[in-house]
């Protein structure tokens, strides 16, 4: 039985969502020998403005590279939650950043996890810039789609040299946070 898993990472420009999308795709296609595509949609601004990164993971060739039936939504802004929350498929997962999404709408048929993402990045590392890695850890834990080591390999190959350690630590923290959320 073939599978196709769609992940939508949505938020604002500058939050590093395109990078974690590329890491997910690389982990799947290079380190786990699956097929993956990552595509994106963003505005002309270099920071701010809506940003969306979509990753398709499959054991087959991926014809259509855009998400149509989202299994997993990460919402890093209120706008992203409002726009994409209801487009997540039945039985899917929605994770949102409690720091950024203040009025989450009720969603039917999906598991919704509020998570401290930006807050944890600031509290533990004094760097909101690693919030994307915290989010990635949560995504990996809750989706259970890729092995943790394959993702770590991909992080090491994609983040700027010299920043591997802090990124991996932030990822681990997110992964642990995911375990906590599972227990809720």
């Amino acid at each position, binding site marked *: 039985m073939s599978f196709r898993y769609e992940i939508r990472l949505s938020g604002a420009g500058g939050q590093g969502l395109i990078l974690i*999308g*590329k890491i997910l*795709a*690389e982990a799947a*296609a*290079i380190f786990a020998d699956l*097929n*993956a*595509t*990552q*595509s*994106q*949609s*963003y*505005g*002309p601004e270099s920071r701010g403005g809506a940003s969306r990164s979509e990753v398709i993971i499959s054991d087959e060739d*991926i*014809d*259509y*590279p*855009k998400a*149509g039936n989202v299994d997993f939504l990460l919402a890093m802004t209120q706008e992203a939650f409002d726009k994409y929350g209801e487009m997540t498929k039945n039985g899917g997962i929605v994770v949102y950043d409690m720091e950024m999404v203040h009025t989450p709408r009720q969603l039917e048929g999906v598991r919704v996890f509020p998570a401290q993402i930006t807050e944890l990045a600031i509290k533990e590392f004094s760097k909101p810039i690693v919030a994307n890695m915290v989010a990635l850890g949560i995504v990996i834990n809750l989706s259970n789609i890729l092995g943790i080591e394959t993702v770590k390999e991909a992080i090491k190959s994609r983040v700027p040299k010299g920043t591997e350690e802090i990124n991996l630590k932030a990822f681990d923290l997110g992964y642990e946070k995911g375990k906590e959320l599972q227990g809720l």
Partner: protein
Amino acid sequence: MIKKMMHGNEACAYGAIIAGCRFFAGYPITPSSEIAEELAVLLPQVEGKFIQMEDEIASMAAILGASLNGIKSLTATSGPGFSLKQENIGYACQTEIPCVIVNVQRGGPSTGSPTMPSQEDFMQSRWGTHGDHFIVVLSPSSVQETFDLTVKSFNISEKYRTPVILLMDEIVGHMTEKMILPEPGEIEIIDRKKPSVKPEDFRPYENTEDGVPPMAAFGSGYRHHVTGLMHDETGFPTNNSEIIQKQKDRWKKKFDLARDTVVFTELTDAEDMEYLVFSYGSSARCTRKAVKIARENGLKVGSMKALTLWPFPGKELEKVSRGLKGIVVAEMNMGQAIREVERAVGKNVKVLGANRYDGESMHPDDILSVIEKF
């Protein structure tokens, strides 16, 4: 053979290096900028030169100068820059200077939608510059195809002394997926023909049997004149109508002879098809998905992907269109390739467009809803 995760723009840069490109001049513009960024890193590693020029007009001029010196050259841009390059693209057609121009399409006209996908430059890629001229346009639908077609673009430009347009779109340019990077030697690389006669006997626009005159690099001892005016076989301007016609007829002969070697299409699910979806670039990815869904619903649908847009694959299309109940032309514009499709298949087959021009990528439903209309 190396397995790598890349986006289309990176694959284009790697393809250029493998093809032997050693000069890039350009001006950054979304969604093509990563091609320049990559080549700024890669070219110095192979003793090539990278230059960011003051604008697109100058960068087009710079690659023509470099190519006249015998160096394979590339520029990359998007809509507004592609418009600016047109004057010098015409110069390249007139003077038969090999070069490759990448246009990663965005929505237009004018500044349009810089970060959004479109296929609105289908016609401009063929007819953007004025006057009767010939040009080859290739269009990839995946990261791997971007690499392969970049190499092919250089090979065609060198073999036939012509500018080649690689018409990408934002989705293919920015999409990351796995690709196989072949080892050097695993891939055919073509270099331009050089003159074998003595320098004093050299005629840079000679009417050779295949229509392609040999080309001498500046500084190699072969002196020749290059002008945007119509010229005779020596390269000097002429108003002699007999010579003008001869030169233009040679261009036609050259492209007629080249035609079948530069037109690439892919036909799938064609054996029993009653309907055909014709598409190119990222719309071809969406088409594959739509065909799969249609077949699950019991409709006999096949697809043709054009990797070459110009010369238009009309002959190939006409051959498979006989007896069909309908053809859908799926493209991210208000209907451009559809005119060529209609011309190719005549009145015997009904042709409908599936068009998306709101800045979002084509969705399989956009195609399926049109098939239902037949």
